[in-house]
C-alpha cells in the first residue's frame, strides 16, 4: 500500500529533519545510521517520545528513543535546568516532527500534527499492533556522546505514493521555517 519510492521519500525527509532539528547547535555532528528490520520494533532506549502526523490516507508516528543519562542531560539541558530531560526531548521531537510535517504538506494538503507524549521504551514492540505498512529504525549519534534512536511507523488506509527530494541548500543552512 506504501510504494517503495514513498518509503524512500519518507526516509529522506526524516534524515533531513533529524539532521537539522535534533542537534541543539547546527554545528554539532549528527550521524544517522539505519538499523536492520529486526530492530525496527525494539526499544533502542529506556524512554520514548511519540508524535503523530495524521492525514486522510495515513498516519505517521515518529518515535524518538532516549536514555536519561548524564551525557544526554548535559547536552540537552545545557541552558535550562528548570525543565526535565523528557520535556527537552519532547520539544526537540516536536521541532523534528514539525519539519517532517512541513515537507509532507507539499504532497498531502490535509495534515495535522499531534502534541508529543512520553512513554516507556517497553512500549515500542507494540508498534506492530498498529499494523504498520512501513517501520524503520535509526541510530542517531549527536556530538561525541549523545545516543538517540528513532523509529518511523506509517499506517496507511489508502495507497500512498509520492516522491520527495530534500533541498540540500536548505538542509545546509538549516533556515527552513517550520510553522
Amino acid at each position, binding site marked *: 500500500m506504501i510504494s517503495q519510492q514513498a518509503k524512500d521519500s519518507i526516509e529522506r525527509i526524516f534524515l533531513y529533519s533529524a539532521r537539522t532539528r535534533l542537534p541543539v547547535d547546527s554545528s554539532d555532528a549528527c550521524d544517522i545510521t539505519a538499523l536492520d528490520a529486526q530492530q525496527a520494533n525494539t526499544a533502542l532506549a529506556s524512554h520514548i517520545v511519540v508524535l503523530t502526523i495524521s492525514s486522510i490516507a495515513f498516519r505517521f508516528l515518529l518515535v524518538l528513543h532516549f536514555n536519561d543519562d548524564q551525557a544526554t542531560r548535559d547536552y540537552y539541558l545545557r541552558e535550562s535546568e528548570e525543565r526535565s530531560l523528557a520535556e527537552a526531548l519532547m520539544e526537540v521531537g516536536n521541532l523534528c516532527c514539525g519539519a517532517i510535517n512541513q515537507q509532507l504538506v507539499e504532497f498531502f494538503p490535509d495534515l495535522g500534527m499531534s502534541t508529543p507524549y512520553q512513554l516507556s521504551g*517497553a512500549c*515500542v514492540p507494540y508498534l506492530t499492533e498498529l499494523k504498520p505498512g512501513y517501520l524503520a529504525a535509526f541510530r542517531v549519534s549527536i556530538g561525541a556522546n549523545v545516543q538517540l534512536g528513532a523509529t518511523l511507523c506509517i499506517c496507511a488506509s489508502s495507497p500512498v505514493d509520492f516522491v520527495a527530494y530534500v533541498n540540500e541548500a536548505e538542509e545546509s543552512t538549516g533556515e527552513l521555517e517550520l510553522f
Partner: protein
Amino acid sequence: MVDQYVIAAALAGVAWGALAGLFVHRWWYRKRAAAQRQTTVDAQSTALAQAEERHAAEVRQHEQQARELHALVDTLRDDLAQQSVSAEEAREALNALHLQKDEWLQQATRLSTEAGRLRHLSATFERWHEQMISLMSQNHDMHAKNNELSSIVRHVLIVSLNASIEAARAGAAGRGFSIVASEVRSLAARSQELSKSYHDSLNRNDLITTATFQDIQAGGKMIAASLASVEALAGQIQSRLEQATT
C-alpha cells in the same frame, strides 16, 4: 364724266379690294391666331398629358413607397413584438438570477456561519485530550500498583524459598511445612508471570491509547485547518456576492 365713273369705279374697286384685302387679312389673321391657339392648346394638352403621366408615375411611386413603408411598419411591429417578448423573457431571467443570487448569498452566509461554528470542534478535541491525559494517568497509576504487586510477589518468592529451606532443616517434622512453602512459591511464581503479563498489557495499552489519541488530536487539527480554509473561501464568496448585489 366717264372718267369720273371710271375713277369712281376704280376707287370703288380699290375700296372693295381694300375691303376684300382687309377681310382676307383679317380672315388669315384669325386663322393664324386660331392655328396658334390650337398649337398652344395642343402643346398645353401634351404638357398636361405629360404632367398627368408624371403625376401618375409619382402617384404610383408614392403608392409603392407607401406599400413598402407599410411593409416596413409591419416588420418593425413584428420586431417590436418579438423584442418585447425577448425583453420580458430577459427580465424574467434577470429576476430569476436575482433570486438565485440572493439564494446563493444566503447559502454562502450559512456556509460561512456553519464553518465558523464548526471551528468550535476544537473544544471537543480539547475534551478528548483531557480524557486521554486522565486515561494515561490511570495507566500510570496501574503501572505503579503493578510494580508494587511485582515487588510483593518477589518478596513472597524469597519468603517461600526461605520457608522451604527452614522446612528442610526441620527434617521430618517440617515435611508438611515444606509442602505449604512449595505451594506458596508456586503461587508466587504464577503471580509474577501474571504481573509481567499485566505489565506488558499496560505497555501495549499505553502505546495504543497514545497512538489513537494522537491520531484523533492530529486529525482534529487537520479538520480544523480544512474548516478554516472552507470558512475563508465561503467568506470570499459571500463578500463577492454582496459586492455584486450592491
